[in-house]
């Protein structure tokens, strides 16, 4: 049985190891095989705990490695026997990893999250539709029991209005930021009270310009919406090769 390794990501061979303490405080190193290198470290005994410290360490190691060469980040918590790193990762997916690293060279990920203030958004929606205002005034004077279905109808119309406003704002923001990104990913579903989540793949040199554009977008969207920008991060959202094990069988 070969030794197990915690795997942070994949980079090119021939670059310095990242100088950064990783998961559980263990120093990361490179495991070189062929032209590629896995960024690895000693695994914790048992399952990897997604503590704040460990999650931060995972990202910090990848960021340190990105200073030397492009990096394809692994998901948090991958522990593999050394021979599996060699055969199932670096050998089986070699061509795809090579292409991926070439594509990601000089690029970082920025994460945008736009949260809305419900009351502020409701005010916008009601103000935009006089019909909703009239329904509201009518219902306010009546007993709750007597107006059950009317209240459901009002709520349904308001819900539609909120969704329309949210979608329009999301589209506006994406249009404003799209020119500054190489690639863009938007999840199909967003959590409650989130108007938009988006991942942008951005050239390192263009990060400042992207930030400026994001600041303008945030100012325009306030106060009903609050924009948060995270990063630069390793390009977690832009490395999907499918399950690498399946990719290996297919090739």
């Amino acid at each position, binding site marked *: 049985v070969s030794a197990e390794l915690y795997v942070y990501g994949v980079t090119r061979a021939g670059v310095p190891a990242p100088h950064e303490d990783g998961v559980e405080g263990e120093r990361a190193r490179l495991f070189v095989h062929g032209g590629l290198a896995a960024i690895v470290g000693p695994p914790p005994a048992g399952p990897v705990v997604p503590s704040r410290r460990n999650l931060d360490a995972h990202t910090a190691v990848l960021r340190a490695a990105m200073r030397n060469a492009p990096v394809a980040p692994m998901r948090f918590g991958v522990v593999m026997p050394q021979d599996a790193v060699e055969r199932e990762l670096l050998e089986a997916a070699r061509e795809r990893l090579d292409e991926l690293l070439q594509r990601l060279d000089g690029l970082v990920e920025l994460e945008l999250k736009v949260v809305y203030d419900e009351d502020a958004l409701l005010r916008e929606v009601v103000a935009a539709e006089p019909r909703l205002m009239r329904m509201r005034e009518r219902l306010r004077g009546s007993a709750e029991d007597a107006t059950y279905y009317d209240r459901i109808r009002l709520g349904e119309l308001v819900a539609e209005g909120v969704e329309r406003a949210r979608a329009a704002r999301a589209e506006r923001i994406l249009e404003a930021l799209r020119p500054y990104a190489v690639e863009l990913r938007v999840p199909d579903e967003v959590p409650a009270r989130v108007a938009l989540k988006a991942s942008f793949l951005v050239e390192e040199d263009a990060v400042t310009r992207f930030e400026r554009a994001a600041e303008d977008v945030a*100012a325009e969207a306030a106060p009903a919406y609050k924009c948060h920008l995270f990063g630069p991060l390793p390009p977690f959202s832009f490395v999907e090769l499918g399950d690498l094990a399946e990719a290996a069988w297919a090739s």
Partner: protein
Amino acid sequence: MSAVAAGNARGYLQRAPNPSGLADVLDLILDKGLVIDAYVRVSLVGIEVLTIDARIVVASVDTYLRFAEAVNRLDLSQQEEGLMDLTEGGSERKTKGAIEGAKEAFGGNGKRDGEKQKSRK
């Protein structure tokens, strides 16, 4: 909002306190990235707190009634005042609760709990 003049747009964007971003990008680190499924070995302890953001609003009678209630208690007379607040840079106060909730998803402290309760009503 058009009340904000060009060049005066600083301070609205919330930047992560450090470059790695953390609490709000957890789903990124836990769900995205290269993976060989058979070798993922993450402790499930704590995951519930971390992925709490994954709640989705579904269209249902409960949701509609909640929206109707929210619109009913909305104080529309605040509208004018709200616009004035903005021009005076006072918009911070209104949205602060939601932001802090998002920022402190990790801490599991009172603010986050407070937000959760509010959204259940």
